[in-house]
């Protein structure tokens, strides 16, 4: 067989080039779709030429593994509903982290000549990302309660677990002759502790912060991949460069997301957001329920309506009905705009994705900063399944939400909150907005309620 391994590096370089082109195209709405196709094509050829790497065996196992993993990924990603996308990203990211940890494990078991320090760090980060992402997935999927899990001495325990994992990792690196028995003892402990740390680190984080967490683990996996790629005796630069690009991009995205919530990263990870209640605050006023017909009348005589959607809209799959309502109102000459809070839903842009799916045009969607000055001149604001992102408690110094930039919907003449029940938001904090004089509560499933609103408005 002729040696074709010389094609590997040129192809990897082309791969990186197309990854960057792909990412760049993905960052503009018009070219976004072609971006993923470019990146996908590059990934395909990179995978194919890897089979040509000199000295490889186990090709049958490789092919079977790719078919099983690829098949699972394809089916799972095709079947999931659009509302389930955030947890799918978490799941696939976790799998990438797991793969990185696996590479480190194989490398450290001794056959492959590796820079063991890099493999150890890559393994640690990969395992943390794997375990953490799985917990994030379980919380979003509803397999676990999304509320923060906290207990006494939690941070001490977490730090201790991490410290022992790092020490075990150092012992593996410092074992110069690679005594098999020492490796055999330390390696399982090292990976076990890394996994445990990933779980412990994610447990105290509440559902409201999951976007930030998923984004951070995404960056983690990128970094782990880069470290693994560099730990090989012949460094795999495709892994190094792609991993670092994802690490950097993911970190920036994480910081932007945390900024949108006006919270520092350490607060997200150690704050156990939503676990504590503000004590002794009596919210003045009461919740005032309203009927669909009354809201329809309110809308019929409005000049300008702003819709503020949240995760509740996604859960109720109400976006299609919301689009119908929007069209109906516009046909009656009402100005309709959408106010999109950067962290509404479970991922940045989650609302944009769902509304785009329903066919709402981009130019109707407005960012928090763009739309906030407009609320004062608005007749009706429909809050559909949003809670924490419209909670004026964020302006009150003692509230746990204090400082989070919100949609100032309470400045509108009328606010109608569509809500399933009287429960609290994901952050577990009472919402002052619901008690305001200009707020009315419209209880029920958002999809059904909006559907009835459409019918009622048609009759007027």
């Amino acid at each position, binding site marked *: 067989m002729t040696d074709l391994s010389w094609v590997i590096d040129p192809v990897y370089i082309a791969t990186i080039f197309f990854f*960057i082109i792909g990412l760049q195209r*993905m*960052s503009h*709405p018009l070219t*976004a*779709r072609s*971006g*993923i196709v470019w990146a*996908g094509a590059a990934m395909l050829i990179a*995978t194919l030429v890897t089979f040509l790497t000199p*000295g*490889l065996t*186990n090709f049958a*196992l490789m092919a079977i593994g790719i078919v*099983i*993993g*690829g098949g*699972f*990924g394809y089916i*799972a*990603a*095709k079947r999931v509903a659009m509302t389930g996308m955030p947890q*799918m*990203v978490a799941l*696939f990211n976790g799998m*990438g982290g*797991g*793969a*990185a940890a*696996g590479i480190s494990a*194989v*490398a450290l*078991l001794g*056959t*492959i000549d590796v820079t063991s320090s890099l493999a150890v760090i890559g393994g640690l980060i990969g395992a943390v990302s794997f375990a953490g992402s799985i917990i994030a997935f379980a919380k979003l999927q509803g397999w676990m309660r999304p509320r923060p899990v906290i207990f006494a001495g939690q941070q001490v325990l977490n730090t201790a677990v991490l410290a022992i994992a790092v020490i075990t990792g150092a012992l593996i690196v410092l074992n110069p002759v690679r005594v098999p028995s020492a490796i055999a003892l330390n390696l399982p402990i090292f990976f076990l502790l890394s996994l445990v740390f990933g779980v412990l680190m994610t447990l105290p984080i509440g559902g409201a912060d999951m976007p930030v967490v*998923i984004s951070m683990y995404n960056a983690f996996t*990128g970094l782990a*991949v880069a470290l693994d*790629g560099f730990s*090989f005796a012949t460094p*795999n630069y*495709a*892994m*190094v460069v*792609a*991993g670092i*690009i*994802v690490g*950097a*991009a*993911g970190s*920036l995205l994480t910081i*932007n997301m945390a900024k949108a919530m006006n919270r520092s990263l350490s607060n997200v990870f150690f704050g156990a957001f939503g676990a504590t209640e503000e004590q002794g605050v009596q919210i003045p006023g009461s919740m005032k329920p309203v009927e669909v017909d009354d809201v329809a009348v309110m809308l019929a005589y409005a000049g300008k309506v702003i819709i503020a959607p949240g995760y509740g809209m996604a859960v109720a799959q109400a976006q299609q009905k919301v689009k119908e309502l929007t069209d109906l109102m516009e046909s009656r000459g009402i100005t309709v705009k959408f106010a999109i809070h950067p962290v509404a839903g479970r991922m*940045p*842009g989650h609302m*944009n*994705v769902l509304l*785009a799916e329903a*066919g709402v045009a*981009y130019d109707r969607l407005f960012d928090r900063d763009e739309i906030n000055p407009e609320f004062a001149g608005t007749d009706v604001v429909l809050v559909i399944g949003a809670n924490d992102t419209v909670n004026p408690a964020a302006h009150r110094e003692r509230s746990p939400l204090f400082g989070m930039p919100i949609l100032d919907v309470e400045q509108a003449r009328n606010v109608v909150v569509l809500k399933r029940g009287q429960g609290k938001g994901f952050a577990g904090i009472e919402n002052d907005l619901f008690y305001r004089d200009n707020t009315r509560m419209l209880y029920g499933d958002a999809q059904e309620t909006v559907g009835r609103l459409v019918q009622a408005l048609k009759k007027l």
Partner: protein
Amino acid sequence: MTDTTLLWTAVYIAMLAAFTGYVVISRVPVILHTPLMSGSNFIHGIVLVGAMIALGLATTPLEQAIGFVAVVLGAANVTGGYVVTERILQMFDRSKKKQEKGGP
């Protein structure tokens, strides 16, 4: 190459790659954050390549087993990441939406 040259080469590469990632993301509008997070999730699926190499070089049954699991996970990361990103971006395709609206 000596270890030191290799180290410095790596630092150069890391710096430039980090800068690239930063610049590409910094100009992204908020509406594309989700697809981009998903897209970068797909791109670190390149871990599959490393998993293939690890499995390909594995000799003992334990190494083969771990390498196999890594390949399965890596392949799931790649295909799942691609399909999710593709599905999210599909919704932003307005020309297609208009066609759908033409139906009953």
